[in-house]
C-alpha cells in the first residue's frame, strides 16, 4: 500500500499548490478591481443607472457699457414622456390628440412616440425647445395626464436682432472636430450649442453655464424607476462690452437707411481707445440660429453675410487723407497756411494735368481743407515731395492693422516712395500728387480711419481699439477686467500742427464739405472723402471727432458708405445720427441740438 502511494505521493500536493497560486492571483486581481480602481467603477455604475433629462443653463448675457443686453436668454420648454401605467391605445390616442396642437408635431407623430416610449419604458423627449406660447396649455395637460413632463430650459435670445451682430457672433451646433476638442469636464452635450463666431465664440467658456437636470434612475433597458434628484442649473458669466448702445443702434439704423445700405461705422473713445460702436452693413440677425421648435425660419435667412466690412473692407481713404498731407506740410513743409493758391480746376504737373473736383479760386490751408480742394494739396505736395507724407503715414501707422481683437482684420496698404523703391520701380511726380489726395495704391479699413480719428482727437495716441470691458460672474459676482487701454504708438507732432489741423477741420464742419455734421453745442471736427471707384459709384467717407463745446473730444468716428457717391451726402447723416445719439445719451436732459 505504502509503496503504491509513494509512486504518486507528491502529485496531488503539487496541484493544491497550484490552486493556492491561482487563489493568490485571483485575490490580487480582486484587490486591483475592487480597491485600486474602485472609484472609476463607481462612476461607471452611476452612469449606468442614471438618465439625465438635461436643462440647458442660461448663457451669460452680453451687455453694452450702459447695461443694455444685446444677448440674453428666454425660457424654452421641453416636453418629456416618462411612461405611465395606462397603456391602452385609446388613452394614448387621447393624450396625443390633446398634446399635438401645442407642438409642431401631428397627433400621429406624437402617438408614435408615446407608443414607442410605452413599449420600452424609456423616458422619451416628445418635443424640445417650445416657446412659452405653447406651454400654458401643456402645463395644464401635465396635471391631467400623468407621465407628461414639462421641463424648463433656457434659450439664447438677441433682443435687438442685428445690433452689433458682427461683434457678438452667433450660436450653432458642434461639428465632430469641435466635439472632440471639448474637455469632458465642461459638461458639453452633443446637442449643446456653442458660440460659432465673435464674442459668443471667444468667451464660450465663460458664457456657458452649468446645465441642470432631472436625474432618473433607470434599469438596464432604460426603464425609469424613480427620480433621484433635481439639479438646478448655474448661469454663465456676463460679458460687458464698451459699446454705447445708443450710438451702436444709431449707426446700425443710419447705415441701413443710407443710400445703398452697405457700409460701416466705427466709433472710438479717443480718451481710452474703447469701441463705442462698430456697425457693419449688411448685418445679420443671430436669432435665426436659435429658433423655437414651433417657430419657422426660412433657410434663406441662415445664409448670413459674415463679412465684416468695418475691419475687412479696404478702400482708398480719398480726401480724408488730406489731413495726413496737411499734417506733413505743417510739420515739415514750412508752409504758410495763409498763403493762397489759386484753384483753376486743374493742376499742371508737366507730363499730365490733374483735375480738381471743382474750381475753388484762391484758397488758403483752411479753405483747401474745408472745400477739399485737390489743387491746393497738389501744390503743397509737389513743393514738399512725397517723403514727409510717407513719414506721416508711418506715424499714424497706416498700412498696419489696428490690432483690434477680431479675426480677419485687413491691414490696408501704406503708399509711398520707399515702397516703390523696394519694388525697384520708379516714383513719379504724378504719384506724389495722387498720394496727396489719398488715391492710388493707398488702402485703409473703416476701423483704421476711426483709429486715426481717435489719434487726432487725442493729439497723437494711436490706440489699439478694444470692445470687451469686463466679465462678471453670476455665481460669485467676481469681476474680471478684460479690456484695457493700449497705446500702440504716439504720433508726436508739434502742438501748433494739431492746433492748425483742428482749426481746419472745424472750419470744414462750420463752412465746408462736412456741414451735415455741424451740431449746436458741440465742437465737431470732420473731414469728408469720396473715393473714386473705377468699377462703379464712388464710395463715401467721413472722419470726425467731437466733444462738447470747449471740452476735449470724447468721441472719434469713421463712417464709410459703399457706392455712396458723396462723402458728405452718404456718410454725413450716419455720422450725425451717431453724434446726436452719443451726446444725447450722455445727458438725456440736453434737448436735441439743431434740427
Amino acid at each position, binding site marked *: *500500500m505504502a509503496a*503504491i*502511494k509513494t*509512486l*504518486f505521493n507528491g*502529485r*496531488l*500536493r503539487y*496541484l*493544491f499548490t497550484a*490552486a*493556492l497560486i*491561482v*487563489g493568490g*492571483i*485571483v*485575490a490580487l*486581481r*480582486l*484587490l486591483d*478591481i*475592487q*480597491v485600486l*480602481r*474602485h472609484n*472609476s*467603477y*463607481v462612476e*461607471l*455604475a*452611476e452612469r*449606468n*443607472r442614471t438618465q439625465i433629462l438635461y436643462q440647458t443653463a442660461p448663457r451669460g448675457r452680453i451687455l453694452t457699457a450702459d447695461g443694455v443686453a444685446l444677448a440674453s436668454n428666454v425660457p424654452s420648454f421641453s416636453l418629456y414622456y416618462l411612461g405611465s401605467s395606462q397603456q391602452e391605445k385609446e388613452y394614448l390616442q387621447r393624450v396625443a390628440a390633446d398634446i399635438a396642437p401645442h407642438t409642431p408635431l401631428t397627433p400621429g407623430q406624437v402617438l408614435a412616440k408615446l407608443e414607442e416610449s410605452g413599449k420600452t419604458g424609456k423616458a422619451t423627449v416628445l418635443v424640445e425647445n417650445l416657446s412659452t406660447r405653447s406651454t400654458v396649455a401643456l402645463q395644464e395637460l401635465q396635471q391631467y395626464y400623468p407621465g407628461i413632463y414639462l421641463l424648463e430650459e433656457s434659450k439664447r435670445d438677441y433682443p435687438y436682432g442685428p445690433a452689433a451682430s458682427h461683434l457678438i457672433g452667433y450660436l450653432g451646433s458642434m461639428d465632430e472636430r469641435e466635439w472632440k476638442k471639448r474637455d469632458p469636464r465642461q459638461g458639453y452635450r452633443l446637442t449643446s450649442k456653442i458660440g460659432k463666431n465673435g464674442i459668443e465664440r471667444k468667451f464660450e467658456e465663460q458664457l456657458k453655464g452649468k446645465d441642470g437636470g432631472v436625474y432618473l*434612475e*433607470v*434599469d*438596464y*433597458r432604460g426603464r425609469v*424607476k424613480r427620480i433621484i434628484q433635481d439639479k438646478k442649473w448655474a448661469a454663465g458669466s456676463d460679458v460687458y462690452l464698451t459699446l454705447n448702445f445708443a450710438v451702436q443702434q444709431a449707426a446700425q439704423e443710419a447705415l441701413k437707411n443710407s443710400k445703398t445700405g452697405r457700409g460701416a461705422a466705427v466709433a472710438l473713445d479717443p480718451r481710452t481707445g474703447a469701441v463705442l460702436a462698430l456697425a457693419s452693413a449688411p448685418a445679420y440677425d443671430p436669432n435665426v440660429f436659435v429658433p423655437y421648435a414651433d417657430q419657422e425660419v426660412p433657410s434663406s435667412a441662415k445664409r448670413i453675410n459674415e463679412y465684416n466690412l468695418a475691419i475687412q473692407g479696404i478702400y482708398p481713404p480719398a480726401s480724408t487723407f488730406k489731413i495726413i498731407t496737411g499734417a506733413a506740410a505743417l510739420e515739415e513743409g514750412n508752409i504758410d497756411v495763409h498763403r493762397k493758391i489759386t484753384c483753376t480746376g486743374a493742376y499742371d504737373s508737366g507730363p499730365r494735368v490733374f483735375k480738381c473736383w471743382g474750381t475753388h479760386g484762391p484758397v488758403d490751408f483752411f479753405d483747401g481743407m474745408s472745400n477739399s480742394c485737390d489743387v491746393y494739396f497738389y501744390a503743397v505736395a509737389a513743393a514738399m515731395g512725397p517723403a514727409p507724407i510717407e513719414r506721416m503715414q508711418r506715424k499714424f501707422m497706416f498700412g498696419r492693422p489696428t490690432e483690434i481683437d477680431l479675426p480677419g482684420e485687413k491691414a490696408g496698404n501704406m503708399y509711398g516712395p520707399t515702397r516703390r523703391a523696394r519694388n525697384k520701380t520708379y516714383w513719379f511726380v504724378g504719384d506724389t500728387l495722387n498720394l496727396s489726395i489719398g488715391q492710388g495704391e493707398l488702402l485703409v479699413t473703416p476701423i483704421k480711419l476711426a483709429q486715426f480719428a481717435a489719434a487726432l482727437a487725442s493729439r497723437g495716441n494711436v490706440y489699439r481699439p478694444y470692445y470687451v470691458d469686463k466679465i462678471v460672474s453670476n455665481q460669485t459676482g467676481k469681476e474680471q477686467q478684460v479690456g484695457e487701454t493700449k497705446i500702440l504708438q504716439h504720433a508726436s507732432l508739434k502742438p501748433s500742427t494739431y492746433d492748425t489741423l483742428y482749426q481746419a477741420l472745424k472750419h470744414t464742419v462750420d463752412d465746408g464739405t462736412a456741414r451735415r455734421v455741424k451740431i449746436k453745442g458741440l465742437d465737431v471736427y470732420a473731414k469728408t472723402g469720396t473715393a473714386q471707384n473705377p468699377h462703379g459709384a464712388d464710395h463715401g467717407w467721413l472722419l470726425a471727432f467731437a466733444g462738447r463745446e470747449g471740452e476735449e473730444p470724447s468721441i472719434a468716428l469713421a463712417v464709410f458708405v459703399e457706392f455712396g457717391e458723396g462723402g458728405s451726402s452718404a456718410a454725413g447723416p450716419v455720422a450725425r445720427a451717431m453724434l446726436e445719439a452719443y451726446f444725447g445719451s450722455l445727458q438725456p436732459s440736453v434737448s436735441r441740438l439743431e434740427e
Partner: protein
Amino acid sequence: MAVLKTMRDSARNKMDTVLLGAMIGLVVLGALCIMSAVNSLSFSNAIVRTHLVALPMGLCAFAIGWSFNYQIYNEQWKWVYGVILALLVGVLLFGSYQRGSRSWFVLPFFSMQPSEICRICTLLVVAAFLDRRGRAIYDTSTLFWLCVLLAPVFGLIMMQPDFSSVVVTLPAIAVLLYCAGANLFYLGLGALLAATAGFFTLGWTYLYLHPELTEQGVGRVFYLLAHNGWYIAGFCVFVGMLGWAAWWFCKQLRIFLPTLYFILATLAVLAGLAGGIFVENHMKPHQRKRVETFLAPRSDPQGAGYNVLQAQIAMGSGGVLGKGLFSGTQSRLGFVPEKHTDFILAVAGEELGLWGMLLVLGLYLTILWRTVWVAYQSSDRYGYLVCAGIFGMFFTYMLVNFGMLLGIVPVAGIPLPFISYGGSNLVSSLWALGVVQSVYARRIGV
C-alpha cells in the same frame, strides 16, 4: 458526560468538521446571494422557493454520500456506468428542449439536469477504472481503454449538447490521470493537442476580428490553413518533417527516446490542427462571439463584451465593504446578466465587497485543502483517486468562475457550486462532498 464525550469524539472521527463548516458557509452565502440577486425579478419567489427545496435535498444527498461506503462505487462501477448511460440516453429521449439544448428532465414537481449527477458518476467510474489498471497505468493500452470507456459518455453529452459539462469534466479526468501516476508524456501529449487546437481556434478568430491581416504575408498563409486543402497538406508534411528532424537530431546527439514518442507528438499536433479546423467550421455564432470577447473585451462594450464589463463594474463599484445585500444597483437594475447563475460572483462582489469575495475564495480553497488532506488519509487507492477527481472538479469550477469574472478565461456559462442558483448542481456538489466525507470516515486508523 463520558457517554456524551465518546459520542462527540466518534462523530468527530466520522466527519471532517472543517470541510463541513466550509461547505455550510458557502451554502449560506449562496442562499443570501441568490435571494438578493433575484429580488428585483418578477419570478423571484419561484427561484427562492426552488432553491430552498433543493437545499434539504442536497443535504440528504450529502448524508447519503457520507453514510454509504465509497468502495461500493468501486465494486459496482459497471452499474454506475450503466446509470450514467441510462440517464444520458433517457434525457435525449424524454428530456425537454430548453435554451438550445436537450438536457432537462421535467418532472411533475421539479426539474433536474442529469448531466450534473453524471459528472460525479463519471469521475467515480474513471477512478474505479484507474484503480483496476493499477501498475499498468504506464501502458498505452490504459489510455486507449479509457478513451473507449469515455467515448459514449462524452458522445451523449455532446448530443444534448452540454458544453459546460465537458469543460468541467475533462480537466477533472486529467487531474485524476495525473494523480493516478499516468505517464507525464501522455498527459503532455494531451496538453499539446489541446494547445494546438486552441492556438488555431484563437488565431483564426483573431483573423476574423482583423480581416485586413488575411490579405498577405503570414496572416494569409494562416488563414488558408483553415480553408485550402493544399495548404493543409503542406502543413502536414512540414510537421511530419519537423518530427523526423527532431528524431534524427536526438539520435545524432545520442539521446535515446522511443520512436513512438516522436510519431505521437507529430500526430498530436496534426490532430490539434484537425480539431481546430473542426471547431472553426462548426462553431456557432454565439460561441465565436465568446472567443472574440475574450480576445478583445473592450471592442464591443454594448455587445458581447458587455457582460464581462458590467460584471467588473459591479465588483469594482462594490469596493472593500460592498453596497450591502439587496442594495447593488448593477444587479438590482439588471446590468449584470445571468446574475443568479453564471455571474453570481459579480453580485457577491458588488453587495459584499472585497471581503465577501475573499471569503468565498477562502472557503473554496478550504474545501480544496481538506479534500487533498482527506485524500492522503484514505485507506485505499480508490479513495485517494475519488478525492483527486473531486478536487479536480472543484478546482476547475473555481478557476473558470473567478477567471471569467476577472477576464482571465473566456465566458463559458459554468455555474459556481453552492453559490449559483441551480438545484441539480447543488445536490450533486453536496453529494460529492458527502463522498469525500465518506472517504474520511473510513480512513486509515479508524
